[in-house]
């Protein structure tokens, strides 16, 4: 057998060593490129840190006070949770333009069932979440079985869901007092964290359950993506769908489940949004669809699928939060938030393209 032949072994060893030697002669630039490629969460962390540093000077350190941190996190919570859902969908090389509207539909259903129709609160919440999962199921079905592009499917769903919300509610909000009177549990995630007198404080400032929920959603999704077969299949299908199928992944089933899980997370965000906003308004969160995509992209997940990390999305969402709060503290026109976010998105995708070139 030629494997025992020393010359062949030597050759094989040299062939393997060669790229390593080559790597050592690479420029510093290439090293950075490689590090960012191997470690997709690194770039979002750097971007977040830089943003904090910039605003530290721009706001005379006010950005790092407990109050500013609390406000940043609370501002980030809902879009952050939605962005977790958006991440798994984008990882499969899809996109969900409807996710914010689905969340609005979900909380409108929760509020109407619990407040207007007087159903018990917990079943109302569950039915609201089921509605969101139903929207995901329809999107997933259209993407896989009818083979429509996710962009078109969810663009359509966005319009349809939004119209449904306004037709169903007659554009009427449910007032905060009415929720307090009939179904205060709906507002759970707006309450301060207080378990038997134990409060969760951020630098001395008490915070709300929505933050805990956001962190929980990211921890659970990190586990699911990295430690279960389902998560590995999400990456494999996004990376190369045909290859994943040949390797034995049932990609249609997986994709449908991804959109349904996305709907479930949107339903969870819906419950948190009621507490965060206080009232139930069909016209809130109009920007949430695109904000969630922005968080994912700034978080380093590739729109081409298969590459990225869920924690990057958390940092991406926090970056937008720091920008928003920082500019407000610095007394700038709120339009600058959009301006800066726009540039961040473009830069993040440009960087992603550059980093991806390492693999070629």
């Amino acid at each position, binding site marked *: *057998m030629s494997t025992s032949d020393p010359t062949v072994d030597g050759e094989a060893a040299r062939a*393997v060593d060669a790229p390593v030697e080559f790597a050592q002669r690479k420029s510093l630039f290439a090293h950075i490129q490689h590090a960012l490629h191997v470690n997709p969460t690194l770039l979002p962390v750097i971007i977040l840190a830089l943003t904090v540093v910039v605003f530290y000077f721009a706001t005379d350190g006010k950005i790092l006070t407990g109050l500013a941190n609390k406000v940043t996190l609370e501002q980030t919570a809902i879009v952050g949770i939605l962005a977790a859902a958006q991440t798994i969908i984008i990882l499969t090389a899809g996109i969900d333009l409807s996710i914010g509207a689905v969340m609005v539909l979900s909380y409108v259903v929760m509020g109407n069932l619990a407040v207007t129709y007087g159903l018990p609160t917990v079943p109302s919440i569950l039915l609201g979440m089921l509605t969101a999962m139903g929207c995901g199921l329809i999107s997933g079905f259209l993407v896989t079985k009818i083979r429509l592009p996710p962009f078109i499917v969810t663009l359509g769903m966005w319009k349809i869901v939004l119209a449904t919300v306004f037709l169903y509610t007659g554009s009427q909000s449910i007032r905060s007092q009415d929720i307090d009177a009939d179904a205060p549990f709906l507002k759970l995630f707006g309450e301060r964290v207080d378990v038997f007198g134990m409060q969760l404080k951020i630098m001395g400032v008490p915070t709300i359950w929505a933050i805990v929920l956001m962190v929980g959603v990211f921890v659970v999704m990190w586990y699911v993506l990295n430690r279960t077969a389902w998560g590995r299949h999400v*990456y*494999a299908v996004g990376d*190369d769908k045909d290859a994943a199928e*040949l*390797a034995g992944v049932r990609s249609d089933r997986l994709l449908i489940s991804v959109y349904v899980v996305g709907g479930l997370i949107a339903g969870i965000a819906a419950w948190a949004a009621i507490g965060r906003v206080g009232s139930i308004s069909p016209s809130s969160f109009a920007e949430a669809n695109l904000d969630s995509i922005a968080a994912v992209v700034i978080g380093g997940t590739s729109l081409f699928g298969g*590459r990225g990390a869920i924690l990057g999305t958390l940092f991406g969402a926090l970056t937008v939060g720091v920008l928003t709060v920082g500019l407000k503290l610095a007394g700038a026109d709120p339009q600058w938030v959009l301006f800066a976010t726009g540039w961040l998105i473009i830069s993040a995708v440009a960087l992603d393209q550059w980093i991806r070139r390492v*693999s070629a």
Partner: protein
Amino acid sequence: MSAAPVLTARNLVKRYGRVVALDRADFDLYPGEVLAVIGDNGAGKSTLIKALSGAVQPDAGEINLDGKKVHFGSPIEAREAGIETVYQNLALSPALSIADNMFMGRELRKSGVLGKYFKMLDRGEMERRARAALSDLGLLTIQNIRQPVETLSGGQRQGVAVARAAAFGSRVIIMDEPTAALGVKESNRVLDLIRDVRERGLPIVLISHNMPHVFEVSNRIHIHRLGKRLTTIKPDDFSMSDAVAFMTGAKDPPREALAA
């Protein structure tokens, strides 16, 4: 060839509209051999292979595995029966690790509550087995089982795909053009791999356009022409130009070979 064949096909027919891709084709694979399948473009060899690996369902004819009639509705069913295929595109996910790729679609879960209710993967065990599968085939030069497949060379990727097939294939391994995209050195490495797998007792079906490679590793050569098996020959008995002549119809196969 006194032993009973592992995998046989009789009178396979597959039509695509008016095109007859398989015209009552036969096929035999014996234990412990490397059987090369060659044929001109359009001869129907890839349809034959797809029928054997479950990717295509023949319109007529039957396939027998270990003497039992089988019907594969999908590649997954063929795999469950012990037939592993190394596809030309390798079916690897470049961004995922070697271990992830080797267990794609058949991951191992931890035992107990963690695996049952939290579906936690047993990454340690998967990495251990992936390393073992690679070292079985002399691929220990791949140091880090967690490195993404895209960081490997073409030959190493082929090695991972072959190791995956060898680790899970219990009856037959089918390789579709395993050397087509490789340089000389890497091709030789893959040919060594094919020999290694055969030494472990697994019969291999090798589809290739590369005559020197076919003659170097195969025990028998199945020549496919016009949708059916024209003949099988032994590489020792004929030259490469004979094989090409049979394949293209420039020369009629010898009588005794036809009977084989």
